[in-house]
């Protein structure tokens, strides 16, 4: 599956650590599950290469709050595209926990969600075959001025109206 990172399609440098206990997680950037993290924490921390974690929609970033410093990537799963928990979890990662690493959307993601993902703090997503950088560009620009604050740094209608009013005074 192609990876879209900050609007560009790139080769995904990350691999998921499979469940084989003999496989070696010390090579390359590896994404582990919450269970793998809990079961193999010391072994994973002894590695020199980047570490990521994937959370299911039932799991929250709050469960790994103290460990977030170890992760260069947090992936949030969409088991179905109508399960909206990951939007709130992404927002919490960025806002409450100040997380600055990669926040990746995995699972059932389609281009109709790109704008919401972008505005909730996701900066990477595993996209469907056939979807393109142009789709991302079009989706994230579909609504030029949002009506509520988001993490995309796009100024809101409210803030622009206030600026305009102050300029007129």
């Amino acid at each position, binding site marked *: 599956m192609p990876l879209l990172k900050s609007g560009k399609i790139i080769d995904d440098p990350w691999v998921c650590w499979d469940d084989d206990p003999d496989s070696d997680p010390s090579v390359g950037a590896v994404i582990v599950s919450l269970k793998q993290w809990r079961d193999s924490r010391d072994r994973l921390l002894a590695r020199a290469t980047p570490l990521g974690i994937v959370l299911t929609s039932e799991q929250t970033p709050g469960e790994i709050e103290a460990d977030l410093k170890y992760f260069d990537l947090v992936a949030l799963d969409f088991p179905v595209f109508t399960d909206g928990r990951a*939007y709130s979890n992404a927002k919490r990662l960025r806002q409450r926990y100040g997380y600055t690493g990669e926040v990746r959307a995995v699972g059932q993601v389609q281009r109709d969600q790109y704008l919401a993902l972008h*505005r909730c703090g996701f900066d990477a997503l595993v996209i469907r075959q056939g979807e393109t950088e142009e789709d991302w560009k079009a989706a994230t620009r*579909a609504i030029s001025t949002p*009506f509520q604050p988001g993490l995309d740094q796009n100024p809101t209608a409210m803030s622009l109206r206030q600026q305009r009013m102050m300029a007129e005074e």
Partner: protein
Amino acid sequence: MYSYDAFDHALVNQRVEQFRDQVARRLTGELSEDAFKPLRLMNGLYLQLHAYMLRVAIPYGTFSSTQLRKLASIARKYDRGYGHFTTRQNIQFNWPKLQDVPDILAELAEVEMHAIQTSGNCIRNVSADQFAGVIADEADDARIWAEVVRQWSTLHPEFTYLPRKFKFAFSASEHDRAAVRFHDIGIIIKRNGEDELGFEILVGGGLGRTPMMAKTIRRFLPERHLLSYVDAILRVYNLIGRRDNKYKARLKILVHELGIDELSGLVEAEWDRIRDSDLQLPQAEIDRIRQHFMPPKYQPLEDDPAVLSAHRFENATFNHWVATNVVTHKQPGYAIATISLKPIGGVPGDVQAGEMDALADLADRFSLGELRATHEQNLVMPHVKQANLFGLWSALEGLGLGTPNAGLISDIIACPGMDYCGLATARSIPVAQRISKRFADLDRQLDIGQLKVKISGCINACAHHHVGHIGILGVERKGAEYYQISLGGSAAEDAAVGTIIGPAVASDTIVDAVEALIGVYIGARNPDERFLDTYRRIGLAPFKAAIYQEKLNAAA
């Protein structure tokens, strides 16, 4: 009323193009119906029994004659010449073609209307007291705050895929005309002891198969915190609301399962972190929105002009209409007139395109071009000079829209039922029509007095049957339609969920059953006592006996 600036126009137009793309992808088959369904729903498009249905938002029920004319034109051009006003201050078109919907939305955008979030598991069209801004007993114009929430909730990226639909209602009065206790978030605008404006926030109300009254989560929230506080509620709900069973996914179930205290603790903890964020409302923004809702330029007039009294004296029907359909305005010399969309034997809430055009003209002539839609499926002319009431009524009579029954037994709320809806298990409209015809006599209706009859065609309760003084729920038994009756519900400040009276009655006896209930009330009532009050005083037993005794007699 609120008028769009460049940002609003851009957003709505861009949303049309976004949806146009989604429809095109559906028509080419790129999107499956399964993938398209949540996308079309969040833009108000249902797939019903016979056709698509498009639900257009009328935020907090306020709209203009220009907008009504556009609705009429859409009804003619893209539908079968009529529209249906719903219980959430929306209007539905029952027969649009999928490929036409983007064009319909583009036409709506021309007059500052849209179908954004009129369905789907997102924050729905925000509703409010239909008399907001013109009724004397309000603490503030509820529409100001409904508009603040409407803007914040529009295309909200975080709260578009909630566990279930999410409804807001606003009231600023002790008299609840917006059913705030039966919404996911009900907001009562009030002033505290220091005369500061703020909000009582209620959560977890709802109807459907598990009717519940909302509970107060915060007694008084200062105005600048409105958005941060509701944002906190929504975030908690989005994260921990149930997603395993759609019938247990509404906020009301979370309130019920956690208890209001535990939920309140979670919300307050979330709110603590965001209350001073960019969600805090700047005073300048509150002022800016308030500016949109400044009262129109009224003329200095006296109450009760002689011409009104004369017409009331001369014309008994007009006099009835004033008594039932007209409410005191906050401005002397003006009145608020309800236009009943419940003509005797008609389809509750339906309006023909020609009637829409005529009503738009009347709104221009008599109501400063403004109208309201009510959750009881009626319309309102909010700014009528008392001296013009007779002229307005005469014109309405000419259109067949002068029915003097607001709040009476024939002012029935009914959902589309099995005549249109894919979810329904029984028909609602024909039952409403039969009850309306049985009680057509105006003197009798006036004698019965205030009575809220609400008829739903399935347990999803779109017609709010749980909160009818008499609630009627259509059910299907072995291929036949039966109707379950409940009594004592109310959506107003005396809110209650009705009690089911007994086994459902057959379709051909439902009107007789209502007649029997009325008979008990007439026999037992004290002077000036409404049906609801009598029921609450004497209890279920006499009503139950009357219905099932008659049934026994009929069987014998």
